[in-house]
């Protein structure tokens, strides 16, 4: 049994905030940690593009089963490449204010503003220091977009090998 008053207070507060309750809220919060959406199961077979592509391939002489496979794999490959483009084009922007922040003079400025203790100011300065290190570690815009695209390599590999297999062994 927790006996520490702080632990008890934390548990009591946690009971009060249990996340969204409405359907809309749950739907919105389910997208909170979404990065590229490639792990989500999507129903390609009900899309118009799939149906049209499949019938076009059937006209080309492929059996219905093979045409369905090729259409699904092609659309899946396009989905991955669109996510790849998004990762490249909309990578996390550089936060210039944090990157260029002058940390040496920060404790003094904070001390003047907050009128708190020196320990408070230095702990806030340390926090900003950590933020700045994180920001700089990620590099400039080119490094960031390279890193974002690099995370999608395995999805591209998987999508193209499926497509190629379906076509070659059709």
């Amino acid at each position, binding site marked *: 049994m927790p006996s520490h008053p702080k632990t008890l207070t934390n548990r009591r507060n946690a009971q009060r905030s249990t996340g969204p309750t409405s359907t809309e809220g749950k739907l919105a919060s389910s997208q909170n940690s979404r990065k590229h959406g490639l792990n989500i199961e999507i129903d390609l077979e009900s899309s118009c593009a799939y149906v049209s592509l499949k019938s076009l391939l059937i006209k080309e002489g492929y059996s219905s089963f093979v045409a369905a496979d090729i259409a699904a794999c092609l659309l899946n490959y396009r989905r991955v490449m669109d996510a790849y483009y998004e990762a490249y084009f909309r990578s996390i922007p550089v936060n210039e204010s944090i990157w260029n922040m002058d940390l040496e003079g920060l404790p003094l400025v904070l001390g003047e503003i907050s009128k708190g203790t020196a320990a408070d100011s230095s702990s806030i300065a340390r926090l900003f220091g950590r933020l700045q290190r994180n920001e700089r570690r990620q590099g*400039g815009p080119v*490094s960031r977009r390279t*890193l974002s695209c690099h995370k999608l390599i395995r999805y591209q590999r998987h999508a193209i090998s499926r*497509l190629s297999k379906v076509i070659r062994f059709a």
Partner: protein
Amino acid sequence: MKDSVKSIATLLPSPRLLPNESEADFQSSLQGLLSEFETPSPLNVALVIQLNECLWWIKRHTVDKELLLHDSMAGILTRSAEFPQSYDNRRVSMALEGFLSGNAGEEDEQWIEELLKRAELTVSDLRARGFKGAYKHIKMADDLIHRQYQTMRHLQKSIDSVDFKSRLIKRMDLELAVLENNALAIDAKSP
């Protein structure tokens, strides 16, 4: 050929270009690839479009690779000059870009030479150090380029396979027609 391109373009989402890229250049490169085929099937057209996109990604990542190196080189010069480090070392970066391509103004050229002197580095030293600094990201860019080449290889094999199948079907049709003709000829000869 244009009909196949149109029909597949309406069905498949087409590759997206960056704002500074030209749609006309993309299309002309695509037409160049498609001209290799006599009568490409819609599936071949779809695969060639993906192949063309891979070529564009290779171009983009190659440019990025050079940018990563320049960024890193500019960072080294900025630090040696004890300037406050700005996020992309913009001023040094621009001057260095001009200096390396030989288009720098006299002032920028002198400034970069001064920075190099202060850092006690030659251009090739700076390049080597810059490479060392940006090694992790340059390797990632290399991986991305390599991935596009692998994808192109897969697409090429698929295109060959589609092409071979259609030629095989044509050949079988012709052989069937010959057999039918022969059978008719035998029928005609028989009393």
